[in-house]
């Protein structure tokens, strides 16, 4: 591939690519993101190739292995073009039928279609599935259209046209002004206006400046940055290069966590091809602008997502935050002005340049513009990645897109913003999602994690879980975080084990104040949030644990007991056989009882007891009723009784 030397040459090449593609030629796209990969997408791909060859169709049909489509709950996903027929949860065994029915006979394999929960019908097209229908997929939508390793695919959907426009038709200040005017705010957590951050770096006197992609996504359950990097790496490189031009930087870094091997692989391929095409390197598109990008892999520390720790790690030192009273965009990597933005923030930039700040800011709320990708996980019917305009209510995201709570359970809370975020209760479900709205509710946007919890979730245990995560991930440099979290975790562990004491809540509040006010970095300062937000909305659960030694959600293992109701037990012996601890005592026609000494409270008996009996009860905060005396445990059938 000869280098593209002018923006005009790029457009010529794009026209050639488009002309060489027949829009009516059947194309089978297969989601090959990490989640679908785990659910067998590679086997499906192999089977597709074999089957097409077997049926002599390999010349007439294209296969495209794309990045994540977002509907991970129902992957692997196949979309067949040009009709856009969408099949869900496809296995290798389904492939011959798909090829025969849909490709050869133009028919539809009904059993692989998505069910319509409202109409009781089947849905043929991806865009009509409720999960997708209510989304606005400006950033994430391209994932489904391209093979992330193919430059031609990216060019075919208009790739690098924003770069050509920025470098060819706009001055660096015009680019900066456009981004500033769009009010794009950082998608990584803080929500700082990207344009203002860029401007600070641009105006800093030091000539050497850096632009950096923060791809150290580490929040439990969050994987949107991963999916963007894996599925559309060029969009991030394009955004980064445009940012570099606006700031006056010639060197960029992508800090990506080591746990994302496919992202690293696809990113490296993208950088190499972009260099070959002349989108990176010296004299980009003949405009005289030079820019190169290097990939740096993290070593597994959550704190390295914090800006100063990330930069310290990039410098080759232990990834610990440093005191930051001068912003990184003035004095960052190697003490030079450094613009650090998150993956999703950079991916927004080409759109803003191509379509303008006015177009961009029509999406969203007054202070939060554009869309945001959330990873919707936990107790939710449709697990996956969703992109919605800022300002959509939590209720719409969880119920309209997410399909609500599975198994007929009640919604309890949604945890947003990663470990340092907070839990939002049902009473606030009408909250419009935006940076400031979430902060006001005691949580935060963070990078966009959304963990849905149902009635069986104990909020004290949730706080304990996140504090444990943060304790484990604390770098240990400053006392309020290292020692404060250590003590907070000890107290929360005690409370969830039924050994809470009067005064624990107050002590936790005091430790929280010390961390929030005196910790060194943003991680430490926000670390008490899981506790504070659950206390704010679910105080009665803390009090029940401490005062009544009762877990209202019946979740904390050491505070619950299982008990077999003698009036309901039919002595079916299922629980007895399944109990891994051998704690169920019983026999045929003999009412079962649980040996509380042996019971490990694993809940197996509760789960396996047939629903027509529902004889096993979970109790907390009250003594277990005494067992029936042995001589009264024999079940006498009614018929026998009557005789």
């Amino acid at each position, binding site marked *: 591939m000869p280098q593209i030397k002018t923006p005009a040459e790029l457009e010529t090449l794009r026209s050639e690519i488009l002309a060489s593609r027949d829009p009516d030629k059947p194309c089978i796209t297969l989601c090959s993101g990490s989640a679908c990969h785990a659910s067998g997408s590679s086997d499906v791909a192999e089977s597709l190739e074999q089957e097409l060859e077997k049926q002599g169709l390999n010349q007439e049909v294209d296969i495209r292995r794309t990045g994540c489509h977002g509907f991970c709950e129902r992957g692997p996903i196949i979309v067949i073009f040009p009709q856009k027929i969408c099949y869900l949860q496809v296995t290798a065994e389904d492939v011959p039928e798909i090829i025969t029915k849909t490709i050869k006979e133009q028919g539809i394999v009904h059993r692989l279609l998505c069910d319509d929960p409202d109409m009781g019908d089947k849905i043929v097209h991806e865009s009509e599935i409720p999960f997708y229908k209510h989304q606005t997929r400006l950033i994430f939508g391209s994932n489904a259209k391209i093979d992330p390793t193919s430059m031609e695919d990216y060019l075919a959907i208009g790739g690098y046209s924003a770069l050509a426009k920025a470098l060819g038709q706009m001055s660096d200040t015009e680019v900066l002004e456009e981004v500033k005017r769009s009010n794009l705010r950082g998608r990584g957590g803080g929500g700082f206006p990207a344009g203002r951050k860029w401007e600070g770096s641009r105006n800093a006197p030091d000539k050497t400046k850096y632009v950096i992609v923060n791809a150290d996504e580490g929040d439990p359950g969050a994987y949107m940055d991963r999916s963007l990097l894996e599925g559309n790496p060029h969009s991030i490189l394009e955004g980064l290069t445009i940012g570099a031009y606006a700031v006056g930087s010639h060197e960029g870094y992508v800090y990506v966590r080591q746990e994302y091997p496919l992202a690293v692989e696809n990113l490296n391929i993208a950088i190499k091809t972009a260099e070959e095409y002349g989108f990176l390197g010296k004299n980009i598109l003949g405009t005289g602008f030079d820019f190169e990008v290097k990939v740096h892999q993290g070593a597994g520390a959550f704190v390295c997502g914090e800006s100063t720790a990330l930069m310290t790690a990039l410098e080759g030192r*232990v990834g610990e935050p440093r005191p930051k009273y001068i912003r990184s965009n003035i004095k960052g990597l190697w003490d030079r002005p450094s613009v650090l933005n998150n993956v999703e923030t950079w991916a927004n930039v080409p759109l803003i340049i191509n379509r303008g700040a006015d177009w961009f800011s029509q999406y969203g709320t007054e202070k939060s513009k554009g869309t945001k990708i959330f990873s919707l996980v936990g107790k939710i019917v449709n697990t996956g990645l969703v992109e919605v305009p800022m300002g959509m209510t939590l209720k719409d995201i969880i119920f309209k897109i997410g399909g609500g709570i599975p198994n007929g359970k009640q919604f309890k809370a949604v945890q947003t913003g990663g470990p340092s975020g907070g839990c939002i209760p049902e009473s606030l479900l009408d909250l419009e999602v935006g940076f400031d709205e979430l902060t006001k509710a005691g949580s935060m946007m963070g990078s966009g994690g959304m963990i849905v919890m149902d009635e069986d979730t104990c909020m004290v245990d949730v706080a304990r879980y996140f504090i444990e995560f943060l304790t484990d991930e604390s770098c240990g440099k*400053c*006392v*309020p975080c*290292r020692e*404060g979290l*250590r003590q907070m975790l000890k107290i929360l562990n005690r409370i969830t084990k039924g050994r809470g004491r009067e005064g624990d809540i107050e002590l936790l509040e005091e430790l929280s104040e010390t961390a929030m*006010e005196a910790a*060194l970095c943003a991680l430490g300062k926000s670390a008490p949030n899981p506790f504070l937000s659950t206390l704010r909305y679910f105080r009665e659960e803390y009090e029940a644990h401490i005062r009544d030694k009762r877990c209202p959600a019946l979740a904390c293992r050491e505070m619950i007991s299982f008990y077999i109701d003698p009036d309901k037990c039919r002595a079916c012996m299922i629980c007895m056989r399944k109990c891994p601890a051998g704690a169920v005592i019983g026999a045929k026609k003999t009412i079962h009882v649980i040996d509380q000494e042996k019971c490990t409270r694993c809940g197996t008996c509760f789960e396996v007891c047939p629903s027509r009996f529902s004889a096993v009860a979970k109790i907390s905060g009250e003594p277990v009723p005494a067992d029936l005396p042995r001589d009264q445990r024999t079940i006498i059938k009614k018929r026998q009784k009557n005789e």
Partner: protein
Amino acid sequence: MNEILLHIDHREVKARQGMTVLEAAISADIVIPTLCHHEKLEPYGGCRLCTVEVASNGRSKLVAACVYPVEENLVVRTRTDKVDRIRKMILELLLAHAPDAFDLQQLAKEYGADKNRFEKETSFCIHCGLCVRYCAEVKQKHAVGFVDRGTHKEISFVPSIAAEECWQCRECFPLCPTEALQAAYVLSTALFAGNIKKEE
């Protein structure tokens, strides 16, 4: 050059551009307690005991005096209720690890810190990093470093370097705010391990 005027505890203090609030305070004989600060070392900002309240542009916030740069007209308060409360908590957290350390006990008296507030986990080390940073920055030997992170973080001598350098130097021992014995103990086990290796 570039003289800056700020206020610390209602006193006017003159400082130079680039100084920290702690340095300005020391120059005016105003005491701000510290544990991880050392004049020969780069500011670290780890113990947070030097937390003070600053107000500039009408907004007040808590900052670490050892790393916060002086600004014109900055108003610093070194002893507010909140500052004292936080220092007390920091001391109580550290006393769980080094209940008998002299420096900590003196400070505990001043701030009313209860050394029994948290369950004891005596480990001596309070992770001030003075030994680690002194060895790296002043001696440039890197014979002692931190290993692991968070609550598992501890100091550790590198046996091969320690065997060559440490017995002649030992300048880090008196820097330790808790127990110099701790450093000596960790060092001797490191040397012991090093010797075993050599013999093998």
